[in-house]
């Protein structure tokens, strides 16, 4: 809220026009939703409890070029991170059991990490699957969705400067934990087995380096939260108790209204973070702060919405065949990465305090 001319100019609302999808982007998101929803969805996620992830289906994701959407042309992509965020959010209902989101977080991190320190351009292809690892004190790297990754992007925050590098995963995976969400398992990588190529090491602001990845995770969590809400509403419209549809009871109605607020709050902040990233530092709030707020809000929304989905279903929600636990698992699996909700809120307050000085 400082009143210097420099910050004042950027409140101009027209800079935020991309908060709302153009017709073209809305159509694209609808096509992603239709495609992935038909190809995957809850049944595919449930199948992962008994069998491996359907690795072969990556071909279809690669063919649609989803992994490179929103990357700069120099990296082989097109569009901006706003498109990537729209795509990831639209993928939410499908519970894609493949490392799509992790690949997008990894490559968006590279794309925004600044000029390569060694002058090498980095090219990616939709065939390769990637994941993101944050290094902060141990060589045992806990990596979201990393079980099928071909390469891993590392953000090393231990020194004064933040270093971004990339490595082939090959045989560095020491464990895969599938118990939370077998469609998006946690991999543990042994960093000492990785051979890294440095891509950037001139940055000092870790929250700025992680902003693209946080924004992408926020989009994923928003998509999961929105889907859970949608399905909870549908159930509340069908199920009757005490002679009326349960959605008529304010106990249910008001809870779902609060979830709607949480989801839209997350969506607004996530879109704003993407727009700020895409507009390259010309907004009145830093992308670093917005991405932290978005990740925090989306984590809250996803956990609360999926929990409400289980609750609205009642005992049915605790069964394997009901889809509620699948969305809850997806939210719970993604929630802790790049900072819990509390961590991110706190960090955002610190960024704001710094900017405020």
């Amino acid at each position, binding site marked *: 809220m400082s*009143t210097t001319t420099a910050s004042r*100019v950027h409140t101009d*609302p027209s800079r935020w026009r991309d908060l709302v999808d153009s017709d073209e982007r809305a159509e694209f998101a609808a096509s992603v939703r239709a495609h992935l929803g038909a190809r995957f969805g809850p049944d595919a996620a449930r199948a992962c409890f008994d069998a491996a992830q359907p690795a072969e289906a990556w071909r279809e994701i690669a063919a649609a070029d989803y992994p490179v959407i929103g990357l700069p042309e120099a990296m082989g992509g097109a569009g901006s991170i706003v498109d990537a965020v729209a795509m990831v959010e639209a993928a939410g209902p499908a519970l894609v059991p493949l490392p799509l989101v992790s690949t997008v977080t990894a490559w968006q991190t590279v794309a925004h990490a600044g000029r390569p320190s060694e002058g090498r351009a980095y090219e990616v292809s939709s065939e390769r699957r990637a994941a993101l690892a944050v290094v902060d004190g141990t060589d045992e790297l806990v990596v979201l969705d990393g079980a099928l990754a071909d390469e891993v992007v590392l953000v090393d925050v231990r020194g004064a400067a933040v270093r971004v590098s990339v490595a082939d995963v090959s045989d560095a995976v020491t464990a895969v934990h599938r118990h939370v969400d077998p469609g998006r398992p946690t991999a543990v990588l042994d960093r000492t087995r990785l051979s890294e190529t440095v891509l950037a090491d001139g940055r000092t602001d870790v929250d700025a380096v992680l902003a693209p990845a946080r924004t992408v995770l926020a989009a994923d969590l928003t998509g999961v939260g929105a889907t859970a809400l949608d399905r909870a509403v549908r159930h509340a419209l069908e199920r009757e108790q005490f002679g*009326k549809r349960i959605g008529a009871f304010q106990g*249910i109605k008001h809870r779902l209204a609060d979830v709607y607020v949480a989801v839209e709050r997350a969506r*607004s902040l996530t879109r704003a973070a993407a727009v700020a990233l895409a507009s390259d530092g010309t907004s009145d709030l830093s992308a670093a702060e917005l991405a932290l707020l978005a990740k*925090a809000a989306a984590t809250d929304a996803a956990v609360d919405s999926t929990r409400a989905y289980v609750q609205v279903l009642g005992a049915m929600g605790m069964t394997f065949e009901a889809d509620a636990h699948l969305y809850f698992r997806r939210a719970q699996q993604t929630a802790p990465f790049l900072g819990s909700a509390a961590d991110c809120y706190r960090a955002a307050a610190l960024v*704001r305090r710094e900017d405020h000085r």
Partner: protein
Amino acid sequence: MSDVLAAYDRFLGEALPEDYAARVDHYRHDDHLRTEFQVASFEAGWLVPDWEPGLGGQGLSSGDALAVRVEGARRRVPKIHNVQGVGVVAPGLRRFGTPAQQDRLLRPVLRGDEWWALGMSEPGSGSDLASLRTQARREGDVFVVNGSKIWTTQARESRWATLYVRTDPDAARPHAGISCLILDLRSPGVDVRPIPRAAQSVDAFCEVFLDDVRIPADNLLGPLNGGWRVASESLEHERDMIWVNNWVEIAQAVEPALRRPDLGDDALTELGRILADAEAVRFTGLRTVFGRLSGRDPDEFFILKLLGSEAAQRATRFAMESTGVDGLLDAQLMEDRVESLGATIYGGTSEVQRNIIGERVLGLPRDR
């Protein structure tokens, strides 16, 4: 900087004291400055920038007008005294008023020369017009009105009121038999009684009793029995003002905390949560604006009141509690805190907002 904002910046430089930004808390409630600033804004076309010259505007696009409004809120320009006059009554007059009504009334309300009250709520009925009981019966050239209104802000200081009355008790739907009359509050039979408030900061409400009050038929605003439309379309104009102000209020309530280096981790977490609320209000507000510009009527509009008012209450609580016992030594903190309790009540309680979201947005069944 866009040309429009540069011009607005120049205007503010001329219209406000040099040390305004530094002493904003002092100046903001300076009644004399508030009056002068409203007149200056009206004359220079910054009061309602998207209206035509002569009516406080300069014909800006709605996007540019919003930019001006956001900027003004952020720089905390002096508050308009009779805010419902500019925000609700003026748009209603411009949309529904006869040429004679506009000629007589528009300029004074926009300049702040004549204040207006909104005569909507009644004792025993909520903010829902459908249940109002104040009656107007036509006698020749006048309506004779009997009944009472409550929660009428600034009725004592106002010259006029938009008075919603039942003109057709037999209408098929309760909404259909309501009209809007322009009431001169000096008329015989009008009795205005202030309601003592729980704190200085709380809106100054009145009860207004109407005993055989005679209102000229020429003072009908909009169509006979068309009051419901007059009310809803007049209120619509305020909608962006509300979230813009909310955004700024929430952010400002926690601003002192940003200056304190000693906040503990859990206070910082709560502070971050409130910053998220504030920015979510702004960006959701902007989504609704851009959505309307592309011809849609965005559902997310309906979260703004609930999110904004609950967040405002949370922010004043944080402001007070994060300062510990020292918070008890600063009277403004408690004023803000009590005032924020009204945020989740006035203009539709949070419970009503949750019903609206549940029913209109999510499509859940009504139950009343």
